[in-house]
């Protein structure tokens, strides 16, 4: 059938002014599935959650677990039942969290395996799905930093480089991911490159959660994206996916505080013209600060635990990246401790003074 179709098409096109282009030639993608070098060290194998005591929420924090928010300063709102209520039933961010978990399994995040070049190629296909993680990395701005004169996505690469902190997605995160995927597919340092991808993606999710909490002022449904990017679509007592999985594995308290922060943002949006644009940005900022404080504590716990496993190929690259994520807030809270962290993470993995790092992290990012 196809040949007769082709003959007819050929007859027709003989009289036509131009012909169809060729299909792209598929590459032989049976890449080496063997050991590309490096060793798995399972950085999270002996993970023991931190027992946190003496944590003290801020006086302005929203606390739904405490008598349904009856003891805090917040008015009654939709989150008082300690449940996240979605704004809209459809949440695209859930797919991106699911994609992250697929990448985690494929590449052995945390050093659980030595991924092959084929694993990296398969992972890159997942990462670059249309509307997937890549589509958000390239546009991501870090709302912690002042806005640039125009949206980063409207800038040239040169202009973006002028605002590297704000244009964090295309300027900082994307190059890490591109280089790690390329090197991994080429069989270079698979464990290290998988670790870079892990760290870069956790950075992306952290920045994204904060961004969604910010943009929820204009679009309430962004609350759903915020919640999904941390929890993977789960409630407090369910096992989270993505970023939340990392935090819960290290501290129940820290995880609960993040959930409190997410519910605080949702509460604010419920109180602040839920069907239109928000007006009470002071309350937004209060909720966002509560959330960000909890998220930073969660990242600090990841770094803290990973430093304890050094030297480990599966932990070092991601730890360095996440330590960099903490630098902005660390410098604001205590420049001395921030400097100490910078010094340590400028060293090689086997030269890091883990005790010094842990001390600095505990001082900078205490539980709340």
């Amino acid at each position, binding site marked *: 059938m196809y040949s007769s179709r082709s003959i007819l098409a050929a007859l027709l096109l003989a009289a*036509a002014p131009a012909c169809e282009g060729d299909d792209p030639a598929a590459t032989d993608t049976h890449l080496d599935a063997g050991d590309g070098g490096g060793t798995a060290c399972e950085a999270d194998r002996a993970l023991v959650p931190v027992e946190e005591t003496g944590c003290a929420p801020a006086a302005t924090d929203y606390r739904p677990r405490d008598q349904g928010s009856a003891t805090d300063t917040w008015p009654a709102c939709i989150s008082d039942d300690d449940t996240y209520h979605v704004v809209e039933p*459809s949440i*695209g961010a859930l797919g991106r969290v699911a*994609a992250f978990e697929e990448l985690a399994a494929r590449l052995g995040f945390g050093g659980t395996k030595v991924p092959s070049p084929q694993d990296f190629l398969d992972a890159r296909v997942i990462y*670059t799905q249309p509307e997937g993680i890549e589509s958000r990395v390239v546009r991501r701005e870090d709302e912690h930093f002042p806005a640039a004169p125009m949206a980063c996505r409207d800038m040239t690469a040169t202009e973006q480089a002028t605002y590297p902190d704000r244009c964090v997605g295309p300027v900082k995160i994307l190059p890490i991911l591109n280089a790690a995927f390329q090197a991994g597919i080429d069989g270079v340092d698979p464990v290290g490159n998988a670790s870079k991808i892990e760290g870069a993606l956790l950075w992306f999710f952290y920045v994204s959660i904060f961004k969604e909490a910010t943009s929820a002022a204009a679009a309430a449904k962004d609350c759903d994206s915020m919640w999904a990017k941390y929890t993977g679509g789960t409630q407090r007592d369910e096992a989270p996916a993505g970023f939340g999985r990392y935090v819960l594995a290290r501290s129940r308290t820290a995880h609960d505080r993040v959930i409190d922060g997410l519910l605080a943002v949702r509460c604010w949006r419920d109180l602040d013209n839920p069907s239109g644009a928000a007006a009470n940005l002071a309350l937004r900022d209060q909720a966002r600060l509560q959330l960000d404080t909890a998220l930073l504590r969660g990242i600090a716990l990841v770094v803290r635990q990973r430093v304890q496993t050094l030297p480990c190929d599966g932990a070092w690259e991601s730890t360095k990246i996440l330590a960099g994520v903490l630098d902005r807030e660390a410098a604001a809270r205590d420049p001395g401790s921030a400097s100490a962290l910078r010094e340590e993470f400028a060293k090689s993995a086997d030269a890091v003074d883990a005790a010094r790092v842990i001390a600095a992290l505990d001082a900078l990012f205490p539980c709340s």
Partner: protein
Amino acid sequence: MPPDRDTEPPGPKLALVIAVAGAWAVSFATAAGARADGGEAPSPGRSRAAGSPAEPLPVREREVTEIEVTDRDRTSASGDARASSRVTRAELEERLPRSAPDALRWEPGVYVQQSGHGQGSPYLRGRTGQQTLVTFDGIRLNTSTWRQGPNQYFFTIDAQSVHAIEVTRGGASTLHGSDAIAGVIDADPLEPRLDLEADGPRVRPRTSLRWASADSDFSHRFQLDTQWSQDVRALVGVGRRHAGRLESGGPVRSPTTGAIPQVPAFERDGRTQLGTGFSELTGDARLVTATSPRTRAVAAVYAYREYDAPRTDQCPPPFAPRSECLEYDEQFRSLAYVAHEGDLGALARESKLALSYQRQHERRTLDRPLSFVRNLWRDDVDTFGVTAKLGTAHAPLGGRWRGRLTYGADAYHDDVGSQAWTEFTDLGIVLPLSRGQYLDGGSYSTGGAYLAPEVSWNDRVVVRWGGRVGLAAAAAPGDPSSGSRPVDDAWLTLAGHAGAEWRVIADHLALVATWDRSFRAPNLDDLTSRQQSGPGFQFENPALAPERADTFEVGVRGRGDAFEVDAWAFRSVMHDSIARAFRSAAECPPATPQCLLSWSRFQLVNTRGASIIDGFELSARASPIAAVSVRGTLSYAIGSGPNPAARPADPALAYAERVPLSRIPPLNGTAETRWAPTPATWLGGGVRWATRQDRLAPTDTRDPRIPEGGTPGFVAIDLRAGWRIRRALILGVVLENVGDAAYRYHGSSVNGPGRGVIASVESGL
């Protein structure tokens, strides 16, 4: 001109044929009406109208040249029994439209949406895409991969090769089969000229140049019109075109927030739209030979090649970096057919028998250079068609009664090829995907047979009715790795119409009422496609059933020496309407990450309950004083249908049982005036306007092509001038959008051109 054969006595056999066919069609139309009413027999009051598009079939009298302006040009090919209009070659030369869809912007009941600068989709009475039928010289162009909502395929007709475009509004499935729910758009190609005084071979070269400032659009066409003898003629043409980025009048803002929508993206001048510009190559050849004094054969090839045409709302996609772009690298359509047409005797006074082949080819690329990734798709549809359309002579039926029968059959078969790849440009890796947008190897067939009698009394009252029995069948292999189920289904489809025309004052005033039952069988796009549409990701539903529409319309037609007035009101009631229903991530098909990742997800479903569009169209033309003519149109439609989304479990969430239908145009209209100070010159202008459209379907509110709160209204004014020296030279100029309005047709990705100039020169023998 051939003699008027309608006056010849056809004999008793023809009268018998009409009588038998009429009886059959009455019973058939009754059955069709009963289905619409849920099993009840239709009351006479409901089947109150008729309207058979008694299309005159091609005979030698239609062989006019591309610049000849005759009374025929303003005569609807559908006769006066239907709401219809016709864009003539002369109007094309004066309005200088950018494309075939653009040529319809001045027609009543037509609203042209554009998802790309190199794309355009005419809405008829609020419906488009799969629900309007596009034909070229009577050959069906709709394929089984035409999408819900607007598509780009009418753009693949080269307006430079068209003599006229006929628009028939309202259902027309009796004569045309599936898809003709909202109407039919037929492009009438240029014919090689017949010179009855020539006694030897004649060759007439002709060339045209056109330039538009808003998009630096430069096009030219060269054609050879040859006549070897009075029995053998040919017309061959080639064209080339390149359009740059389109400068608009500026951004169109949300009518509620004042915000500038994400679509389209602009260059830093705030006017020039990214994701615009394209190139074209066209070619056509038409050979006409007389096979008898009353019949002829036609062999024709039409090729359209469009390159590098971005889809504006995806170039860049909303919120994406400017370097991202979805582009149609190749949008090709090739059509070849042979036809025999003319007078075959009393039983086929008009006839057209045609064999056709069409290939629709698309190659698309979504380029994301920052991440060194490209997604590539190729989709091909090969369509083989056979049509027979015949019409008897008018036959006396006794007394003052006369009758005529139109009848025919058609069949089209599609073979679909569809592939997709992912390419990593930094590593030179190309990965084939398990399936393309459609299931590779799919096939689709549609066709049927029809009878459409017409009986008149004293030339004052005409009653028309008819019916079609059709069959559509779809088959596609499954793709287990993507969770795509195989398709193997067929549908028996019935269509019919009935109506009457009362010529209250002969040739001056007529009242028309029609009822039409048309249908659309689900096609391979509905049954197998997965695609990122404007409002979200859409995935297939292999269990769809045909949708059916009953259209009731009444019209008044007035004609005088210096005026024409047409007024139509209609109600279109769609049953089992195929519409997009929201789906959750859990309902996505397996192994389809793009579905999971999308902001919104949809699946096509047959809605329960009727979708209704009500509306009216007015058009008028007058010549109040010598050399001056004015024309105006006014169109309105309002539509609602059952909410395709299920009622949410949370009673606190808002839910409406019925919702507006998607992308229904707002109240809109046109006004034109023309002054011809000499027979060779014209001066004039036109105004297009539309009111704000804020009746939005749920999917519209997620469509980045529609500003938040709706599309604002607009007024765009063109001024025109020209000089025509018979066939030798035609100069035309249009000052478009002289008010530099920032405007957008509802649902479009592209804003209209800003203030600019279009100039055209055409010369030849």
